[in-house]
Structures are given as C-alpha cells and as structure tokens.
C-alpha cells in the first residue's frame, strides 16, 4: 500500500544534503545573510517610516523662516497679527527653538520653547505642556526633557539640573522637572521643553523674536496659495510646507537606505553567483547519481521532487531562521550597527526604540524575492539532467 507522503524520498533528500554538507552549509549561510539583511532593511525602514509619518502628521502646514545671506535668522513676531488676518489661516504660532550641542556626549538636543497661555504648534507638545503645566511655568528655571535626553544627561551626572552655556558665555542653570515619552520615539528622544523666556535666554534672542512662525491651514488645497501669498508679503522669508518637509524627510531616509543598499548588493551578488553556479549545471557526481536513479526506475518527477525537497529545506530553513533573527536583532537588540546607517542625523542620534512594525506583506515579498529563485535554480538543471537518457549519463 502506498503512503500519502514519501518519507523515504524526503529522508533521501536530507541525506543528499548531508552528503554535500560543506557546500550546502555555505549556501545556507549566504542565503541566511541575504534574507537577514533584506529583512533588517525592511523592518528598520518600516519602523522609521512609521515614526516619520506620525511626526509628519503633527507638523504645521506652513513654516515661515526669515533668511539673510541664505541663512535662517530670527524674525520679529510683530508680523503675526497681519498673517492671522489672511483668509484660510486658522492658527499662527511663533516658535522659539534650536539645537543645543552637548559636547560631553557629542549630541544635539532640540530645545523647544513653550507657551502657557497661547497654543503650542504641535498637539503632542501641547499635551505635554498641559500635563506638566505647573512644573514648567510655576518655577522660573525648570525644563521637561524627553527620555533620551534624560538618559544622556544622567550618564554625564546631570541628574537634577543642567548648566546651559549662553551665547555671551554665562551659565543658565535649568532644573529637570519631569520627563516625557512622546507619541513617537523620534520626536520625544532629543527634545527639551522649557518656557519661551528661558529658551530665548539660552539662544540669546530678544523678547520680540522667534525662530520661525508656524501656520495651520485647515484646507490642504489652500496651502500652496497661502504660502505664495506670504512670500509676496515677506520677500525676506521662505515658506516650508508640510509637503516640502515630507519630501525632505524621505530624501534623508532614502539616502541612508541607499548606503545600506550598496552593502546589500554585495551579498546579493554572492547569492547570484550561487544561483549561477547551480543553474549552469550539476557536478559530474550529481549527474551520475541522477543517471543511476533513472537507471533503477526513478521517474523525472521523482528526481525533481527530491531536488525540490533539498532546495526547500535549505531555502525555507534559512528563510525562517533569518526572519526570526532579524526580528530579534531589530526589535529586541535594537539593530546595533545597521541602525547607525539609517540614523546619523542629529535628531535621531539619542537612543530610541524602534517600534514593532512587521507586516506580512513585507515578509511575503522577501519570501517571493528569494525562495522561488533558489528553487528554480536548483530544480531546472536537475530536470535537464533527468531528461537525458540514463545510459548517456552513467556511461
């Protein structure tokens, strides 16, 4: 009586893999590295894109910056009332913010001034302000810091306060009144929130100055028109729309993934050498074995099934191992080394946790980009050898 599954054929395929152990282990390792790297790229990029999208969602529709000699300058907040009168603009907020270079750790913090009574430009920041309202504004020299900042400061023994160096060389001692976790890690990690007054002091700005002005435009179709109107009104300023920021963020990210791609191509190249080696024919031993199999009564289908089992074992085992390792590496270990390729930018520099974003579409895409290719490269030459007359092969 015949069995449903030919266990002996499967065992034969296993033993065949074992017999050519060194070669198959090499292929398994290359295949593993390829899928592992590919998965890491996808997992990290998915996570960062998810973070970026969340960040972009909360950005203002238009940011107005004053330029002088091509560089961004502080602008006077007197223009706010005029801008607020433009039809279609629902909210105009002056921002006081900038980067503060923390030499000890070699990182930039994003210092953001917040206001108690006027609305803040971002919902997430407004939420934090509401939560820490008293801590920021009741005492004069306090700040609320993101998780990443807190950790960086603690590492340098600034557990309770931090001494900012002002542009005039003086020190501004500001106490840590609380820490927060933002909606996204990218957003929250390097941010320091303090009152506009203190922020201006740290940056050496006058009381009627702001870094830039943000606008809310509820109708997305009006954004471009309002931006061009503002450019006419203020020829010394440039308008950055949310769409511009989106393109800019994506460009930065794509550039970084490009570097990684170059590294990945090397592995891919090795993979194709293996495929080429497989596809260009079998060794004389392998051909002879197929000839013997045919001579003792194996059909072409039996030979192909054996080769299919062999190729499936190698590719599927590598695939699942690589996916599991990639998940562990990216989401548990936080992708050391590889993540640095994606994140070299100041706002990304402080440690942040990659959010767990694994979609099955990505995994299926990786599967179909690698496994069937290898299966075909293994099976086709075997099929060619199996269709030859057995006598021709074993003589």
């Amino acid at each position, binding site marked *: *009586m015949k069995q449903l599954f030919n266990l*002996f054929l499967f065992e*034969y395929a296993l033993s065949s893999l074992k017999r050519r152990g060194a070669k198959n282990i090499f292929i398994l390792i290359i295949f593993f590295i390829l899928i592992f790297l590919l998965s890491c790229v996808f997992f990290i990029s998915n996570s960062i894109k998810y973070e970026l999208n969340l960040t972009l969602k909360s950005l203002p529709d238009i940011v107005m910056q004053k330029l002088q000699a091509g560089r961004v300058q502080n602008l006077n907040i007197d223009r706010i009332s005029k801008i607020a009168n433009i039809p279609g603009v629902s909210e105009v907020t002056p921002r006081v913010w900038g980067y503060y270079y923390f030499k000890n750790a070699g990182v930039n913090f994003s210092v953001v001034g917040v206001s108690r009574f006027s609305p803040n430009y971002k919902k997430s920041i407004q939420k934090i302000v509401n939560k820490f309202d008293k801590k920021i504004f009741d005492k004069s020299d306090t700040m609320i810091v993101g998780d990443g900042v807190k950790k960086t400061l603690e590492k340098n023994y600034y557990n309770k306060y931090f001494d900012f160096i002002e542009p005039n060389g003086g020190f501004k001692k500001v106490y840590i009144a609380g820490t927060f976790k933002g909606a996204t890690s990218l957003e929250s990690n390097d941010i320091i929130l303090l009152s506009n007054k203190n922020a201006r002091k740290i940056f050496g700005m006058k009381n009627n100055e702001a870094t830039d002005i943000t606008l809310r435009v509820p109708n997305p179709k009006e954004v471009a028109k309002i931006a061009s109107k503002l450019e006419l009104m203020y020829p010394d300023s440039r308008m950055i729309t949310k769409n511009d920021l989106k393109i800019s963020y994506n460009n930065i990210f794509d550039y970084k993934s490009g570097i990684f791609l170059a590294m990945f191509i090397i592995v891919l190249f090795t993979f194709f050498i293996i495929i080429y080696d497989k596809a260009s024919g079998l060794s004389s031993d392998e051909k002879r074995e197929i000839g013997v199999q045919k001579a003792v*009564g194996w059909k072409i289908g039996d030979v192909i099934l054996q080769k299919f089992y062999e190729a499936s074992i190698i590719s599927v085992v590598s695939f699942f191992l690589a996916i599991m390792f990639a998940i562990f590496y990216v989401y548990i270990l936080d992708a050391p080394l590889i993540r640095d390729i994606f994140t070299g930018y100041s706002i990304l520099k402080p440690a942040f946790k990659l959010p767990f974003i694994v979609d099955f579409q990505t995994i299926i895409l990786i599967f179909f980009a690698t496994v069937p290719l290898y299966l075909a490269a293994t099976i086709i030459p075997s099929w060619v050898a199996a269709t030859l007359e057995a006598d021709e092969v074993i003589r």
Partner: protein
Amino acid sequence: MINVTKVNKVFNAGKINQTIALQDISFNVKDGNLTILKGPSGSGKSTLLAIVAALLKPTSGDVEVDGKKIAKLPDNFASLYRRENIGFVFQKFNLVPTLSVFENVILPLIPSNLPRVEIENKAKKSMEKFSIYHKKNDLAKSLSGGEQQRVAIARALVNDPKIILADEPTANLDTKLSTNFLDFIKELHSEKKTILIATHDPIFFNLPFVSEEIEVIKGIMK
C-alpha cells in the same frame, strides 16, 4: 519473453563522428532462460542491453518484453518498466559511492512509496541473500570490488524483477570473485529468472545451464 527485432542504433547520426553501434539485431530470450551476449569490447553488447532495459532508444527496430513494445516508451513509462521488470547489474556497478549499502540497495524502492517496514524487509532479504547485510551501514566507496558487486546485485534484485540484465559483470573482478558471481547467476537461473548477460569473459562460455550464446561483433550478430 524478450523479442528483439531488427534493432539498429546509430550514435551522432548525420555528424562527422557518426557511429553505427548495432545493425539489424534480432533475437529472443524465452522466460527463465539464461542467454549470453558475447563479443569483444566495443562490439555493441552494452548498447544492446541498454536498449532492452529501455535506458536507450534504438534508432530503428522493435523490442518487446512480454508482448509490450518498450523501444519507444516515453521516459516516465520507461522508468516504470525498469522499476517493475528489470534488475540491471552494471559493469562498473554504478553504486552511489557516498551512500551506505542499505541506501544503495533501497534506491529502486524509494519512488514506489511503500511502507517503511516493507522496504526494510525487502532490502534485508536481498542483502542477506548476497551476504552483504553485515555491511549495511558502510559507505559503498569503502567496500572491496567483490562487495560492491554484491551490493549491485542486491540492488538489482530488491524489486524481485522478472528479468536480470548484467553488463560485463566480471570485468572488474578477480577469478575467485568471478566464480562467486557465476554461483549467484546459477542460483537466480534456478529461480526461473530470465537472464541476459553481456560479456567477453570466457568463464561464461559453454556452460551447461546457458540456454543460448549470441555473438556480436562490430554491431552485427554472427
């Protein structure tokens, strides 16, 4: 019953290196008979055996086994025919050197998808019959010539085929091992197997239990 009728085989037909291997070969082997195909090396004996085993297709002519035409069988049917009817002992044994004795012997049974116990029993029986069971876990490449031949015979007979074809079975053996092989053949003959042996070894000539000797020289039957 094997009927070979006007079989011709031309290799590389129409090319500069065209070789006429067989010309108008006709003979028959009755069930249970032992027939010797004799002739010098390169006379076409192996080609003739390969055609009877459906390992090779003749350029023209017919081969019938038990009334079924096998000369032009499609590949899959030819494989099935070999699996069910033929036990082939090759000149160089054609064992897979990196497989164990057991794995080599069960090779013809693997595609049949039989239960494990049945496969193991058949293999054991065949190995015991040819005194190679004690070496079942040894790799084929580690065996002596005589042992390899016994494995090749055990593999050829594991399916209990009706027809046994042997191509120069003693070419790689010394006199003692050749005599042993002759004993195996005698035993198989007594079991009423149809046997066709291609050889130029005189040890097989003029034996009392041989039904017929057919001489082939340069592809032509004498």
